[in-house]
């Protein structure tokens, strides 16, 4: 029983179906929910669920909104290869929370469109006591962005 970092497989299908739109302002809204270390969220996760989601003081089920200030971008590396990428434009922050059960994963999901799952990101197990938990995003570029679609 463990969470596993992965892009959700259903998300790949939903990109082809036009059900996941990261365009700033006109696109969908996304949220970030935290999950206990005993959970099993991974590539097979298809949507947000309350099962094994953390709970505690000042944490609202469903998590917090993801700030999307920059639309997906793309660049070509050659005639046959390129990268499209996207990263939330601000840290994901849970303020003044108490989360006593260890958690080690965040699920990014589309709360405009049926809570469809995007990706699971794992980190070392944490608890928070009357404190703040912050997830800082990687640099939004072709090599480090949180989500990258790449051809080679």
């Amino acid at each position, binding site marked *: 029983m463990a969470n596993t*970092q*992965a*892009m959700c497989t259903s998300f*790949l299908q939903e990109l082809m179906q036009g059900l996941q739109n990261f365009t700033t302002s006109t696109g969908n809204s996304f949220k970030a929910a935290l999950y206990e270390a005993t959970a099993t969220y991974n590539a097979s996760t298809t949507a947000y669920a309350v099962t094994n989601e953390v709970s505690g003081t000042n944490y609202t089920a469903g998590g917090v909104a993801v700030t999307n200030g920059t639309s997906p971008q793309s660049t070509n590396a050659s005639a046959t290869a390129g990268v499209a*990428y996207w990263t939330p434009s601000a840290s994901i922050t849970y303020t*003044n929370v*108490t989360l006593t059960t260890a958690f080690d994963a965040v699920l990014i999901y589309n709360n405009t469109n049926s809570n469809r799952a995007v*990706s699971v*990101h*794992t*980190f*070392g197990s*944490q*608890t*928070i*006591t*009357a*404190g*703040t*938990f*912050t*997830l*800082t*995003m*990687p640099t939004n570029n072709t*090599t*480090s*962005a*949180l*989500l*990258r*679609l*790449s*051809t*080679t």
Partner: protein
Amino acid sequence: MAMVFTTKGEMDESLLEKKEGVVDTDNEHTTWVEYWHNGEMVHRSAHVTLKKALVLSAAAAKIG
């Protein structure tokens, strides 16, 4: 005087024992801070910087 939000409300940092730590792996850089009062942890915060991006590989098949 710096004040710290704790399980007992706002407390002066000078009254608390502070513990800090860092975890650095290929996947994350994490810093955490704890404040203790009379042997009881009254505050713990953590700051995780994600390092590892998720990459989807895409391909277009050759026709013919």
